């Protein structure tokens, strides 16, 4: 996993996953919130929102739009941008989409996002990850949820930061160094 590109991609997945989880668990899943701010209906919407929902359904290969996107679609322009970032972050690139779903599952599990954990587990399985592969991600997530707390409790200082090689490549599209 050498080269900064991979790590930038991973960071984007982590960020947008957390953003979706915050809205999914903290807003879209709460009846007290949706009673006051109802999500946009699946059907009978204006054309831009309908196209957005169609794209989301196609990307996830499902017949419904995840509630978080219907909630965000209360502001269609905002929802479109969040979706564009989500689609970009999760699309196949240097990292494969199925692995990105594994990262998102680990992030969701670690941050106790009920919606994110279930959603990304479903995506992992849909994209062909087997039970053993899921358990591997759970194992790594659990073990590093232990190491991190041991390190924090003892306030250990980083001592392995220099074991990875430095990537001297320029920014994408930038002049050579």
């Amino acid at each position, binding site marked *: *996993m050498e080269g900064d590109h*991979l*790590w930038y991609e*991973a*960071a984007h*997945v*982590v960020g947008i996953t*957390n953003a979706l989880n915050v809205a999914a668990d903290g807003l879209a899943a709460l009846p007290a919130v949706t009673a006051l701010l109802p999500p946009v209906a699946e059907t009978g919407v204006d054309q831009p929102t309908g196209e957005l929902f169609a794209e989301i359904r196609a990307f996830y290969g499902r017949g419904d739009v995840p509630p978080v996107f219907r909630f965000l679609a209360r502001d269609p322009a905002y929802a479109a941008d969040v979706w564009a970032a989500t689609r970009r972050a999760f699309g196949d690139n240097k990292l494969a989409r199925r*692995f990105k779903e*594994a*990262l998102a599952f*680990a*992030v969701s599990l*670690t*941050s106790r996002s009920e919606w994110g954990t279930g959603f990304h587990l479903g995506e992992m399985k849909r994209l062909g*990850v*087997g039970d*053993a*592969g899921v358990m*591997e*991600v759970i*194992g*790594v*997530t*659990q*073990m*590093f*949820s*232990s*190491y*991190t*707390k*041991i*390190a*924090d*409790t*003892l*306030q*250990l*200082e*980083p*001592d*392995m930061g220099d*074991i990875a090689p430095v990537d001297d490549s320029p920014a994408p599209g930038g002049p050579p160094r």
Partner: protein
Amino acid sequence: MPTVRLRDASEYPDPARKLFELSKSWFNHDFKHPPAMSRVMAWDPEFGGPHGRAMKRAMAPGEWSRGEKEMVAAVVSGVNACAY
């Protein structure tokens, strides 16, 4: 600053020092001193032993590569806001 005094490798008994050598091959890096976490886990072999075996089992290549698992570990550490 750590809340405990991290012992030098030479302060540990032989079995622990052998494990420190193994950590070099695990990380494929010639550490000047064993990583702090290795020294912490060696403090109580009855805890560190099974914990380390569980970690090695979890990190072994399977459906995901070791590199992919290191990335999962990194994002979990990030979400846990752990700088170590």
